[in-house]
């Protein structure tokens, strides 16, 4: 029932279904895909990353989807993308060469507690589900919790706010798990976080409006990726650094990864039809994922072709 052949990619799924489906993907592509537990969430749920690898000791690319729980098209895009990578390996020459030289890590549900909460209690939940001592409000914005200008502009000190940064950098175990994996691995060359909705392709910084040293290259890569994305359905993205094209936002994941030495750090905000906000109809998952794939692939190819 849950084989990769029968899962409906044009549907939203629960955490359990996604996790079970991961097992079937691994079973069907044993020489390519493994499912690794990165750690546990605040409420004790496992956090699984899919690792696509054809060798050992390789540089790697990181992609996470759905750090904000309610942005469901992100997690759904992650599922579709994982399947795309597994099925295209061996037939798509460019992807094959990429995976023959680099590993790819895909964290489909970066905030499992929040995701389950959106399915069971509050569809509009964004944050983690950790208890904030002294407050009736729960949760921290996991994209304000990274050690990158932590506690600076664009993050709230109020535990009831949707952009609450938390008591300390990496206080959220969901963030800490990723930080520990990236740090201990030590050879990630790209870090991509996928959000929804706003149609943006961004690079660091969010905690500062000053340009990063690699701004010209990141901007050029981002613009080319956005062009590729638009080539499928004409979906138009704005490209730039977080601070200038949205607003100052401290404690973000890609600011941390860039400052940790991962040059090719990007964040995407997926499709917005202007009618549904976070409730993009499931019929649009596959078109969204398909166009996003073109941008992701362009970035990954650039990373492969520009070792540093």
């Amino acid at each position, binding site marked *: 029932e849950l084989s990769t052949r029968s899962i409906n990619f044009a549907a939203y799924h629960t955490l359990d279904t996604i996790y079970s489906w991961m097992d079937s993907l691994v079973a069907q592509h044993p020489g390519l895909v493994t499912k690794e537990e990165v750690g546990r969430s605040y409420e004790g749920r496992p956090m699984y990353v899919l690792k696509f690898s054809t060798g050992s000791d390789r540089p790697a690319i990181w992609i996470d989807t759905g750090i904000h729980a309610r942005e469901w098209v992100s997690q759904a895009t992650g599922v579709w993308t994982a399947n795309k990578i597994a099925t295209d390996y061996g037939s798509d020459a460019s992807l094959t060469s990429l995976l023959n030289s680099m590993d790819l890590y895909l964290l489909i549900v970066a905030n499992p507690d929040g995701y389950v909460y959106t399915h069971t209690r509050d569809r*509009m939940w964004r944050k983690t589900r950790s208890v904030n001592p002294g407050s009736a409000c729960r949760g921290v914005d996991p994209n304000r919790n990274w050690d990158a200008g932590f506690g600076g502009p664009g993050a709230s000190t109020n535990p009831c706010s949707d952009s609450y940064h938390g008591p300390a950098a990496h206080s959220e175990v969901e963030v800490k798990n990723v930080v520990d994996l990236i740090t201990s691995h030590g050879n990630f060359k790209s870090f991509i976080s996928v959000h929804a909705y*706003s149609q943006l392709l961004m690079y660091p910084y969010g905690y500062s409006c000053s340009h990063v040293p690699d701004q010209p290259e990141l901007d050029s890569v981002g613009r080319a990726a956005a062009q590729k994305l638009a080539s499928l359905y004409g979906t138009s993205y704005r490209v730039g650094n977080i601070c200038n094209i949205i607003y100052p936002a401290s404690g973000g994941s890609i600011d941390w990864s860039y400052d940790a030495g991962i040059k090719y750090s990007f964040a995407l905000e997926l499709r917005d039809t*202007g009618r549904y906000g976070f409730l993009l109809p499931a019929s649009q998952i596959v078109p969204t994922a398909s166009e996003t794939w073109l941008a992701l692939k362009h970035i990954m190819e650039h990373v492969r072709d520009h070792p540093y």
Partner: protein
Amino acid sequence: QRLFVGDQVIRINAESEEQIQLLQALETQEEWELEFWRRPVSTGLPVDVRVPRGSLEPVRSYLLAHDLPFSVLISNLQELLNEEKAEMERNQKL
């Protein structure tokens, strides 16, 4: 389960820096319990706000009073949530 019956999501297209500031003032207005899905930043980006049913009238009055152009993105959030839930249930059965 939290319900959003009658809540609307309104899209506001600010046309000047002054209008952005008026919207930013709304962000600090706690009484209306607004939830900004997209915050007021610049005139180039639309602002999306979820407005609870009970706050619809004062918010509309505020927008009209300040000539802030807006449209209704989602007229009843709960209806959309119900449709999504029904679709998921159908899909699970399949």
